[in-house]
């Protein structure tokens, strides 16, 4: 048997570098993050407030989002999961809670981390607030918020909204 008979797989790393565009409709949102302000956008069609303003459009109305709206900083957990699985590229210590958070004044939830409480104590309806990183670490990213933590306020009844986005 020659050496070649043993070759079953070959490793071929592929590297391609891209320029990623946030798009002009995300500008006020990203500038807000640089400033510690949570800026969403209101759809001129259905009047609902998107945070973050996904691609700057309302997927229901197919319209470019309109006015800037400052939301939060507090919000309510609509649903969550406790992550126990390590995976490539993960920057967060296990286990952690990834929650859908509906910021006050926004109409769509966003995903972020919950810390400063036991995973077992996290629940749908829990009120939370952002904990920002040191300002020196800020960039145009939601990563400026290290995590959210419970505020201690009474839970909000999410009722039929539980599990909705």
């Amino acid at each position: 048997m020659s050496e070649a008979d043993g070759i079953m797989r070959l490793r071929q790393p592929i590297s391609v570098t891209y320029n990623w565009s946030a798009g002009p409709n995300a500008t006020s949102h990203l500038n807000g993050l640089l400033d510690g302000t949570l800026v969403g956008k209101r759809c001129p069609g259905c009047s609902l407030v998107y945070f973050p303003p996904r691609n700057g459009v309302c997927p229901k109305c197919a319209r470019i989002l309109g006015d800037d709206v400052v939301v939060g900083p507090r919000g309510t957990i609509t649903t969550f999961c406790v992550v126990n699985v390590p995976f490539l590229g993960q920057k967060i210590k296990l286990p952690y809670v990834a929650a859908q958070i509906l910021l006050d004044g926004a109409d769509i939830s966003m995903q972020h981390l919950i810390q400063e409480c036991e995973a077992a104590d996290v629940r749908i309806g829990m009120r939370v607030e952002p904990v920002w990183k040191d300002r020196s670490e800020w960039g145009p990213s939601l990563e400026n918020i290290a995590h959210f933590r419970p505020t201690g306020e009474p839970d909000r009844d999410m009722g039929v909204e539980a599990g909705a986005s």
Partner: protein
Amino acid sequence: MADLCAVVGVGQTKHASCRADVSIAGLVREAVDRALADANIGIDDVDAIVIGKAPDPLEGVAMPELWLADALAAHGKPVFRVHTAGSVGGSTAIVAAQHVMAGIHGTVLTVGFEKQSDGNAMWALSVPIPFGMPVHAGAGGYFSPIVRGYIKRSGAPSHIGAMVAVKDRTNACKNPYAHLHEPDWTLEKALESPMMWDPIRFVETCPSSDGAMALVIMSEERADKHAGPKAWVHATAMRSEPTAFAGREQVSPRAGEMCAEDLWRKGGITNPAKEIDVAEIYVPFAWFEPMWLENLGFAPRNEGWRWVEDGVTDIGGSLPINPSGGVMSTNPIGASGMLRFGEAAMQVMGKAGEHQIDGARKAVGHAYGGGSQFFAMWLVSSSKP
């Protein structure tokens, strides 16, 4: 207006976490050769080929259908590629069928595949996006909060997911092609399985597989002359909706409900739970079985979990779900939907072997993808409509 068409051949690979013994082309050809042999035709009898797979970065080959033209002896023929996320295996079979239903081709070969071991699936499924917040943990991190929403809404007890997992893993032992053959699961053991993405336990998640599924679809004129069993396509349906918008219902997406309503209407089905003999539905996390039972209109809202608990969806139950072992036992993403469609066809053709449901005459294949937003379904039968 559309012509009738029928599945006359079904072929799949042995699925495994790593099929290092074959190239991508070899994997695809293994399923294709079995489908052609099952249909008792040669590859030269094929008029056109429709290929589906999930994102190309899973293997690192862009638009691999171009390179695979050689392996499929497709020179001088039409080759068509579909990509609709996780639902792609289903939508690919539908696009293939429509080439026949439209009277364009008489014999179409369709194949769905994924060779996930050739790349890094966890990376390819959750590439971090600039400006966002990298809290995702693969597909489980996305779907587990939705499962939590279902549990809260329906009041389902926490062991339902484990029950589905045990059923599917047990069923898979009757399917020689299934990736996971794990006969020793019991409910007690499953409940001890570690929480991966709470409330989803490790046993309640699907594997990552290499595999392919191929179907031969013929026009009515050709199928009538064709010896052997057929799966007549009574109806196909597809629906899509955006990933996220304010107030979106994620537990039971409207697109899924509409897709099912369309399928039942086209197929003349008024009482799905009674008229359908078996269904192969796309369940990558065990909890999606009760959720889809409700979304498809089989079970009333918030009652799906009771059907699981009562054994309705077992092989011996009144509506067996995934007798093949389903996605829970075999998940080559780009092939998973076509496996559902093909397994449904095998049931009404009487070719499902040990996991055959006795007397199955009408079966449903179902696939979904993206953030529970792309749906593809078909209804097949042992007889013409």
